[in-house]
């Protein structure tokens, strides 16, 4: 199928090469968004320089003395530097791998459901967590996990005769809890997102496969998954670019900022927040952002380069 599209494309390409003018409407259509991106994203980039300057409000904020990397130092002075980098990267990798497998698995099964009415209900139901803010999730989490009144300790472990667990002081459970909540919160949206792709796959392919005697597994492996590949690759590239970022609510509010859990919950964002909470220094917080951006940028370039090598049409640029 792809081969035929490509052939058509190259045929079209030759014809259009002469017609430069025909692109003008396309550029015009892109213009509103590009103007917005310029204003919203590019113009403020000028301000990134304050990460390298002393904070000085006496004149323009962009005229403080250059201190180069002084504002970055606080990120690297403690032993936490290692821990927070490890946590940020590992959790993100975990989210990419588990999240992708889980959401593809659920979406495929979801699309096998024959009752459309129930399917609609499920779809709405699993989207609910997507609407609840992380702060509220943290309160709900506390209702489940609190030592004294927690639902899990009182209504599940106690009747089973298991000793209550002090959830907020036991780091070993938290990687699972964080992964669970992350998946729980995002499942409705990823289901929607992948379903969008699955429903556009023409039924003809499946019909033809059935006639050829293909099993359901074969249909999934040879039709559905190849169709989903581009979007999965794309989402992975984009996630890798954000591997130094973390959902602040998930790592700060959900564990109730419990000190006993820091070894498994500190990420670059939460560390920076805790360190700057009292100082409120905008040059240092900008420095954190610059550090995350540059690492993310390098990673996305590398991933994109690798993707280009293996499958050109799936790369970003």
């Amino acid at each position, binding site marked *: 199928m792809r081969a035929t599209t490509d052939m058509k494309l190259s045929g079209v390409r030759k014809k259009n090469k002469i017609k430069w003018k025909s692109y003008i409407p396309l550029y015009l259509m892109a213009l509103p968004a590009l103007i917005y991106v310029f204003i919203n994203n590019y113009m403020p980039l*000028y301000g990134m320089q304050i990460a390298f300057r002393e904070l000085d409000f006496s004149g323009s904020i*962009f005229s403080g003395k250059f201190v180069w990397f002084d504002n970055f130092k606080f990120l690297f*002075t*403690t032993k936490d530097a290692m821990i927070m980098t490890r946590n940020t990267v590992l959790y993100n990798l975990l989210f990419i791998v588990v999240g992708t497998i889980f959401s593809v698995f659920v979406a495929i099964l979801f699309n096998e459901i024959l009752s459309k009415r129930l399917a609609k209900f499920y779809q709405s139901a699993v989207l609910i967590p997507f609407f609840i803010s992380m702060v509220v999730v943290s309160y709900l989490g506390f209702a489940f996990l609190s030592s*004294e009144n927690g639902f899990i300790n009182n209504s599940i472990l106690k009747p089973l005769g298991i000793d209550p667990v*002090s959830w907020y002081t036991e780091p070993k459970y938290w990687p699972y809890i964080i992964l669970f909540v992350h998946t729980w919160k995002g499942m409705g949206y990823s289901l929607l997102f992948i379903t969008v792709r699955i429903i556009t796959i023409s039924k003809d392919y499946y019909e033809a496969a059935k006639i050829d005697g293909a099993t359901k597994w074969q249909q999934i492996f040879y039709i559905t998954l190849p169709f989903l590949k581009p979007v999965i690759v794309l989402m992975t590239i984009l996630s890798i670019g954000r591997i130094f970022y973390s959902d602040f609510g998930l790592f700060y509010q959900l564990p109730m900022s419990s*000190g006993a859990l820091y070894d498994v919950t500190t990420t670059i964002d939460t560390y920076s927040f805790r360190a700057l909470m009292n100082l409120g220094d905008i040059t240092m917080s900008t420095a954190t952002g610059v550090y995350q951006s540059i690492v993310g940028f390098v990673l996305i370039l590398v991933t994109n380069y690798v993707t280009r090598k293996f499958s050109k049409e799936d790369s970003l640029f």
Partner: protein
Amino acid sequence: MKKNLVLVLLASFLVVGSIGCSNTNNGNSSAPSNESAVPTAENGDAGKINFDEEPYTIKVNYAVLGQEQPDLPKIEAKLNEITLKEINAKIDLEGVSLYNMANVYALKASSREKTDLMLLMPGNRYLASFANNKMIRPIDEELAQWGPALTETLGDNLISGQFNGKQYAIPQKADQKNTIGFHFSKSILDKYNIDVSNIKSLSDLDSVFAIVHEKEPNMTVLAPEVSVGNIASILKWNDGLGNAYGGLLDPNSTKLENMYESEEFVETIKKVREWYQKGYISKDVNTSQDDGATLLDNGKVFAVAASSVGFAGGSIKPIEKQSIAMYPPVLTTSDTQLLLWSVASSSERPDKAIQFLNLLNSSAELTTLLQFGIEGEHYEVNANGTLNVSNNKNYESYWPMFGDYSKAPLSETYVTASGLSVEEFKLKQKAWNDNTKKSIAYGFIFDPGPVKTEIAALDAVAAQYAKVIGNGAVDPTELLKKFNDSLYAAGLQKVMDEKQRQFDAWLATNNK
């Protein structure tokens, strides 16, 4: 492709750069006006307000809870009548949401929005850094010229608005200094006939807690007053001189020590640990988002370790409470720094700003107007001189931000909550204030600038350990060592040395 990218980036830099430049120009043009704004040099009429010029509008940023009060325009109109007459200026009040104050001020300063007076609250958190960042300006000259009432009413307290030897802010006079101790639920005390008035040490409380724990098994015996605090840190007196890293453990000492290593602190956490193990403290103490104070009012908690023990010895609202002090009241710099008025460095007329503060501190009328609103509309005057504000919906001010409250009348609700009569209230308050000592370091403010990086790292470390240890949730012996090791690894010694150096220099110049 890359060349094009560079072009786009360059273009964006140029556009924004031009704003940056125009800002610099603003900055420069306002800088000379700072000097010219002081008219003394020209006419020599010190302290005489010029009524010939166009009235200047003073932009005043003060603290609000999210939104301004609906009747603020009425108050402003009334206020302007007075200020036009007295100091030839108009006041434009703009509320700043309390929880977001640092951000809002930083944004205003970086975009050079018009601001003259800024209320800093809690001021001890912001004064040093704002002064370092030059967001606020020194006001010594203006104060000398335009602030006779300020010097008079505030007296010694003015020193808490100083930083590095210069006056950067005008404090609000503290009506009283609270101290550390406990609040107990009165109904429980009465029920079991417990007398807490003779409690002298933490160990004295063992038997009290034991009784309540036994008789009221569903009640939490002890909690920290605020959920972000921890019991041991609340109960150990310490003047941190600006932050928790190295402080004076005694109001007369001049040697900085690491509180977390001190014998007294270790004793305190051992006691708290013992209480925790006996089940007096909730297992959720480190993660609960509900304050001990709230839990006490709702009957869940019997006692809270508090830093808000005042002269009234308790209160009757919303439930009846009895309080005991575990340490005599000692005034530290940060106490009078709670509310600080400072002048923005971008202000065109710092002289007018100080004139307004001076007027505020000399006029009970203005204080009453800004605090309680307009008589007949927002409050009524009671026979005993207090103000009845119970019918007021459209204007209230939450904190004593506006001038000298010892001149203004008291709010009825404030007095009745203490369970005292007005006379008793005033007498007790005065006795308490006369009894309040000043820390030897009163007036000293640490400049964190040179060790900013270390403090950021230390804040991160403290956030990890302080609460866990201070609430007794874990065995402290081992963890405390780990905590202190981490503090030193994050630069505690460097911060303490720097603080001690600054403090010694301050002591020397102040002849202490």
